[in-house]
């Protein structure tokens, strides 16, 4: 006696379930796209509503000059400063 593989033709119920699954899959994909699109829209909206980035003004030569002519490395190297003058209110 041989076992035969019995092929059954799809019943109406099986086809219905399959279609439901496919529909659900399509729906979830479309839903995902929709959510993604909504998220993107939200991001875009957020981007437009964000305060403008703080733009630092290009430092002028005057603004730079104090630090550029007083490099910290050079100032820190002094081990035994010899005081040469004293700032105070006008004398």
């Amino acid at each position, binding site marked *: 006696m041989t076992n035969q593989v019995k092929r059954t033709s799809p019943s109406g119920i099986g086809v219905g379930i399959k279609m439901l699954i496919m529909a659900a899959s399509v729906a979830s994909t479309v839903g995902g796209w929709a959510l993604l699109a909504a998220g993107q829209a939200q991001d875009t909206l957020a981007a437009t509503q964000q305060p403008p980035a703080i733009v630092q003004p290009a430092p002028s030569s*005057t603004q730079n000059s104090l630090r550029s*002519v*007083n490099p910290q490395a050079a*100032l820190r*190297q002094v081990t035994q400063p010899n005081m*040469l*003058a004293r*700032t105070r*209110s*006008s004398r």
Partner: protein
Amino acid sequence: MQRLDFHAMGCQMLAWIDWDDANATEALAQVPLWFEEWEASLSRFRDDSELSALNRAQGKPMRVSETMWQVVDAARRAAQESEGLVTPTLLDALHAAGYDRSFETLNRSSALATCSAEIGDWHAIERDAKTRTIRLPREMRLDFGGVAKGWAADQAAQRLSAIAPALIDAGGDIALSGARANGEPWAIGVANPFKPESDLELLLVNQGGVATSGRDYRRWQRDGKWQHHIIDPRTGAPAETDVLSATVIAPTTRQAEVAAKVALILGSDEGIQWIEARNELAGLLVLENGQIVRSRRMNDFVWSEPIALFENSVLPSWS
């Protein structure tokens, strides 16, 4: 390294040049002469000065020297940068406060008439560059105060720097022409206003200006109340402030002098904010209650910590 002490502009002056040859000696000897020339032009205490002549011009235009032209320009810039808090149009207010003669001859306990005065609008100073003439409104008189001293210190340091690195100390306002000959910065003490012969900090600076504005020295009593020479143009009277002295480092001594005065007039809260908002400035305020307030950038220049005697950056209060 050579040093020269002299007196000018009502202050004790000091000049250093970081070189030892005869050229440096000769250049250093010129410094008091430069200051004498500038003082002769810019002093409000000399009847024969160019400034006194300008103040007597009664609304007529007057052709001025290059020195006067530059200092008027510096004073206008100071007024602009400080939004009018440091203005050359305070002479009447200084007189009203009792500062009507040089500080050395001032009767410091004299009782004087009014205590505030109208402040002229510095925008009304008219200049014509083509003819180098200046016209003041009829009722306006100028006093350059610390701006002239800062300008002079910057000028002298710049002139000496053609020979060697130099430091000019104009009564506590200090101009530095660049790093010393050995490449090291200059070490500048910040006087303790409660004890002027000692220092709160030691600053290391290569180039620029360091100035202190304070009401700890040039002060006098009137009707039992202490007056001082820092006029608040908003009231026309000596500034009422919790800051006893303000020290600022800036690209020039003139700028440092102006910023220190602004910080003192504004008081500690606004004053330190004003300094912090300007990248080119570093500041240190000593308050009447003994507290020390430093701007963030000041830490770049401080070599020593406040002396250990005054823990938690609080000094004895002032009375």
